[in-house]
């Protein structure tokens, strides 16, 4: 497990540091794209993605950073897109909210609540149609559970026994509105259990736990053919959109944050791999390499070319008309 734990840590550290870089540079006003930061949810994304095979496919929301980096690791492409440059995954068209890289298995991130769920369900349908054993994992917030698209998608996946993980990244808020002001039920897991599905819940910041749970979920799915629903709780560290804290806004308390922060996913995993036998100096070396990678990517992105404005209308349709 130590090898896997190191891999998990690399993902966690990469995501965290990349976002810290965004925080560092955002006020320079060169990344002109709204940032929905992943800080706090790294264990979920890293854990699930680690449990997936490279050919497995993921889809997500506007909160894209962790997912993009966990699935692709490609910091150059990531920062180029943040800076709106031609080297970005969408040549600057997508920005932070719409990252995708289908070849690498990140099929789509969509910033309309609920919309990734049907698309993911369709991707799973195609995999089944093609007798592929690829798994699809779709990430969505507790807010998507409000939306009809969640119910319609989950119902269809259960009906057709599609190979898909519904991963609810539950931070108990949709923007500033608590789950309790939006849901007419106690537990989404209890509801999901009434569907023909495999249901899992975890309240952990330990990526290894998420990883194990996901493997268990995939095994159950391979076993009975039914899709999985995972409710994974976490705490969003920063404001809904933007790079700052917002505990003074009044809708949630800094104390809650501090309690979660005490079991920060990156710190938890760091401690674990040290306990697992990695020596500190080796770990620091690994971290420095990631730091360096990020620093170089930011630098490259800053000095990269923008797409030619004459490209503006290219790719609206494939093959011209």
């Amino acid at each position, binding site marked *: 497990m130590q090898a896997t734990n190191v891999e998990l840590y690399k993902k966690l550290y990469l995501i965290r540091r990349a976002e810290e870089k965004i925080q560092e540079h955002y006020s320079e006003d060169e990344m002109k794209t709204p940032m929905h930061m992943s800080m706090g949810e790294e264990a979920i994304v890293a854990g699930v993605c680690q449990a997936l095979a490279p050919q497995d496919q993921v889809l997500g929301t506007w909160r894209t950073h962790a997912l993009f980096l966990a699935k692709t690791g490609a910091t150059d492409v990531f920062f180029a897109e943040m800076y709106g440059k031609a080297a970005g995954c969408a040549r600057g068209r997508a920005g932070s909210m719409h990252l995708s890289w289908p070849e690498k298995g990140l099929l789509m991130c969509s910033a309309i609540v609920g919309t990734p769920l049907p698309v993911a369900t369709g991707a799973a349908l195609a995999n089944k149609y093609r007798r592929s054993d690829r798994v699809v994992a779709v990430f969505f917030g507790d807010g998507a559970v409000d939306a*009809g698209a969640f119910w319609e998608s989950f119902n269809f996946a259960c009906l057709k026994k599609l190979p898909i993980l519904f991963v609810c990244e539950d931070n108990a808020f949709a923007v500033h509105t608590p789950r309790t002001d939006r849901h007419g039920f106690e537990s989404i897991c209890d509801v999901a259990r009434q569907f023909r599905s495999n249901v899992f819940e975890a309240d952990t910041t330990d990526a290894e736990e998420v990883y194990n749970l996901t493997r268990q979920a995939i095994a159950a799915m391979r076993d009975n053919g039914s899709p999985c629903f995972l409710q994974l709780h976490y705490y969003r560290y920063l404001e809904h959109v933007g790079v700052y804290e917002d505990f003074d806004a009044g809708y949630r308390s800094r104390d809650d944050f501090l309690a979660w922060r005490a079991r920060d996913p990156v710190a938890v995993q760091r401690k674990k791999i040290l306990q697992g036998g990695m020596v500190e100096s080796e770990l620091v070396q690994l971290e420095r390499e990631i730091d360096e990678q990020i620093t170089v990517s930011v630098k490259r992105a800053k000095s990269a070319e923008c797409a030619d404005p004459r490209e503006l209308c290219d790719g609206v349709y494939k093959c011209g008309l």
Partner: protein
Amino acid sequence: MRVITFCDALNEALRQEMERDDSVFIYGIGVPDHKRIFGSTNGLLEKFGPERCFDTPIAEDTMAGIGLGAAINGLRPIHVHIRVDFLLLAMNQLANVISSYSYGTAGKHSAPMVFRAVVGRGWGQGFQHSKSMHAAFAHIPGLKVVAPTTALDAKGLLIGAIRDDNPVVFLEHRWLYWQEGEVPAEPFTLPIGKGQIIRQGSDLTIVATSWLNVEALHAAKILARHGVNLEIVDPRTLSPLDEELIISSVQKTGRCLVADNDWVFCGFGAEVAAMVSENCFKALKGPVRRIGFANTPCPTARHLENAFFPNAATIVRKVEEMLDLEPVDLSAENFYSHENRFKGPF
């Protein structure tokens, strides 16, 4: 050449494309049931099985998104709606997700999908089952919108739409299902984005959509007897629009009437009228006129329905007005009634 109906032409297109390419599948409410979308999906379930021809829960927004996901993973979904009104439930996926999928990958990927949707007057269907709304789809960059009139076009354009790498909304007027025409038995495509002059004439250009081409042809026949020679342009594709064809026709005739199978205000007819007025400014001998549905939700009672929908008589009267002619006597004319084909709900 062999003569078949519009409906059979659709069916043949589907069958041949599903034979040719196993990435094509068809789904939607009622697609495999015994009514088979008025017969247009006949035989598909038997031939291709329930994985490639299936029914769905009543969940249009999600089912559209499912098509997108399947398309991203290499399939070519055809999503069928027995009324376009139901496709409006998928406006979110269409406008917010599907239409921008290709653009959001900088054109590296695309979403080949077809949304078949039936439009048109049924039989007392009323305001929740009588919309067209093609202008709303055509307004959105990234979608294509096709509306064939003839059996030939139905087959060639449906195959074209299935092979197109982009999302295509494909609108089929219910009354056209019985139109007959010569259609080659082998598969063929007609280019999306190309219109057609379905009647040559010199006095006035009618740009008509969908069923209204049939009415326009009837109107032209009547007026021909009175020495008026109408040209009729069927754009066939509403987006991207074959502007050149329309412009060159109006350059020739100097007059233009748009007969659109939808509401007039902010409709597709407005686009054609604006485009023609802009591009044929010098050639126009009089203003471009528009006809379409009355500016109200569609009523149910037959006599009100008759007042709601334009037909050949509406076109004749409008043309007379535009050409400053005395109204011809229409009392002996037999205008089309779908009740010659069927009674009872459609």
